[in-house]
């Protein structure tokens, strides 16, 4: 009895100590964290190479040292010190020191229309990503792919999470967007051996790229009706099979269209998907999708999922709602596909098969159903994890599935599920909240 009495006391001591250390950080608004991250990114730009050499690494560790550690376990102490000096300490110090300043700014911004604050935060966030990424080509590529993964995951979450249908058609939608956008840009802006000389001056390309992407999205949206209409009558397993068939049909269709390279793939896309472009599209998609799912029109998806008969009796046009959800999700999948094609500057039908499907589904279910934040966490987390574990080679495909199984056991709906994302709440000052309490 004595021992059991002592353990909680010690735990409490540890807890109070931790709380004391953490307490000031509870009052740091997002702006403070962003400033800290910016400071850390700038610090790494100027001193990263130096510290990396000091701690025995050949270059700046691209992904927080994970890959380095797996290859050379002897470097673990060095990598940990590097992470402390470059990331943890600057963020902690800057966030803490600027706390009252950032709270003041965040509080002032609350008096103005919300979009001013939102734009400011987004611009700052872009600077952080940009500063962090440009040190290393690999980071730029990874950042782009992660941002695209966010769009894909969010759009699949609209169908699988918000509407609760198990749809496997997303690789098909992505492929449609990717090929449409690629064909259009190559046809109009590139002197290509297959599709002939450029029809428009290449200088116009960056301006017409959004139009091209939207056309790709719309085509995917149109094809999504092939899955949406059967969804009026079937649910669950049957719809999963129908949508899986759709993915395979699109894939074999592209494999057999010899004019676009067939199974060999299609290349020569101009380099239009730069980091700012991809970033902007991601922000746009998060904003629009979040707006949609928070409105009553979007919440109708949840009503259809949780009880369709009740939805019908409460004036909700369930067929239209299902069609909207599919077309909307397919549109964003198409956009993501177009961006993906222009990041890789090569597409082949093989990359839109069952492996892509598994990846996308894993991101959605890992992050959390019915949640915008969950999708972002899922997409970023899954991509980071899969890149960090790359040096383990074949073991990667054991570790990630095991992690997924663990998530499914302990949090069956994903890490951050069924949570509404309110940007206003996220960006507001934190000192006032304490006063309210």
């Amino acid at each position, binding site marked *: 009895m004595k021992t059991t009495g002592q353990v909680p006391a010690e735990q409490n001591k540890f807890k109070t100590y931790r709380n004391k250390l953490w307490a000031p950080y509870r009052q740091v608004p997002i702006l403070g964290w962003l400033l800290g991250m910016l400071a850390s990114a700038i610090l790494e730009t100027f001193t990263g190479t130096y510290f990396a050499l000091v701690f025995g690494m050949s270059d700046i560790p691209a992904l927080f040292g994970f890959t380095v550690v797996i290859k050379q376990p002897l470097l673990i102490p060095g990598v940990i010190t590097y992470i402390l000096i470059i990331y943890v300490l600057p963020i902690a110090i800057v966030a803490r020191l600027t706390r009252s300043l950032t709270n003041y700014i965040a509080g002032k911004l609350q008096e103005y229309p919300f979009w001013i604050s939102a734009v400011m935060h987004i611009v700052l966030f872009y600077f952080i990503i940009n500063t962090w990424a440009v040190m290393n080509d690999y980071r730029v590529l990874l950042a782009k792919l992660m941002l695209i993964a966010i769009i894909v995951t969010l759009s699949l979450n609209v169908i699988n999470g918000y509407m609760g249908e198990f749809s496997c058609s997303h690789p098909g939608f992505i492929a449609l967007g990717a090929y449409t956008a690629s064909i259009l840009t190559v046809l109009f802006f590139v002197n290509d051996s297959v599709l002939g000389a450029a029809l428009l001056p290449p200088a116009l390309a960056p301006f017409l790229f959004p139009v091209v992407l939207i056309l790709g999205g719309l085509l995917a949206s149109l094809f999504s009706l092939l899955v949406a209409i059967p969804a009026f009558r079937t649910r669950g397993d049957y719809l999963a099979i129908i949508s899986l068939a759709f993915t395979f049909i699109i894939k074999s269709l592209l494999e057999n269209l010899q004019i676009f390279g067939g199974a060999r793939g299609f290349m020569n896309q101009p380099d239009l998907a730069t980091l700012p472009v991809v970033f902007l599209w991601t922000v746009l998609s998060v904003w629009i999708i979040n707006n949609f799912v928070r409105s009553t029109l*979007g919440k109708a998806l*949840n*009503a259809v999922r949780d*009880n369709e*008969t009740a939805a019908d009796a*409460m004036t*909700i*046009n369930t067929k239209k709602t299902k069609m909207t959800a599919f077309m909307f999700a397919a549109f964003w999948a198409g956009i993501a596909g177009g961006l993906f094609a222009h990041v890789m500057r090569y597409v082949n039908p093989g990359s839109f098969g069952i492996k892509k499907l598994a990846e996308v589904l894993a991101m959605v279910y890992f992050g959390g159903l019915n949640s915008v934040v969950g999708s972002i966490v899922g997409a970023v987390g899954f991509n980071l994890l899969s890149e960090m574990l790359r040096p383990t080679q074949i073991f990667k495909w054991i570790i990630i599935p095991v992690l997924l199984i663990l998530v499914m056991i302990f949090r069956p709906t994903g890490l951050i599920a069924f949570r509404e994302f309110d940007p206003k709440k996220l960006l507001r000052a934190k000192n006032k909240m304490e006063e309210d309490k």
Partner: protein
Amino acid sequence: MPLLNVEHMTHFFAGLRAVHDYSIRIEPGEIHGLIGPNGAGKSTIFNLITGVFKPTEGKVFFLGKDLIKLPPYEIAALGLGRTFQNLRLWRHMSVLEHIKMAQFSQITYGLIGAFFGTGKRNRQEKENTEKALKIMDLVGIGKLADQLVPNLPYGLQRRVEIARALAVNPKLLLLDEPTAGMNTEELINLINIIRHIHERTGVAILLIEHRMKFVTDLCERIQTLDFGEIIAEGNAEEIQNNPKVIEAYLGKGVKT
């Protein structure tokens, strides 16, 4: 013009005759009761009126409009709110979201508004929230706005369903066994709430019930159904003394 006019409605499930030659006329503001033993076809009649099933024969008019060809959501939007015998709530939504959801047909901001969060959208969502809160006060669940529905006790879940049906702006409210699973105290509470709703909104009500106290307290006219057919019709007293009704409920040979 009667609010609801059902003429000679018959429905078959495969070979089984669930409803036979059923008719009812409800004038605005009336409260009607529909009683009958289990399996008599009461809920089927609700489903036929609200368009979940389409009758094999017969006609259904609501405000002079033929409902046979309309899908359920359009029928509801005409002003026909309903509750379900076994609760059909949306388990991941809060109470407020339930009530707002039932105002779906009143939303005019469209997809563009929903995508871009326009001023019109924000204004309408705010208006709808205020309307929803008023309805919730009427039913006595005004303080539960942010509660998730599965966390509520059964009696309150019933009230959420009634509030949700009221949010459709109904002219006729169909209540399918609203007291199922309730104790006497909750029953009396519910009678008062339904009276209150009726007085305040003047909505006509058609309710299915088993409990005689509930029906006789509230309803002006009562129909008794057995094997899909009307066996008796009249006011509370007439029904209670009708030998056919007693036979349907208690069996033959019981003396009154």
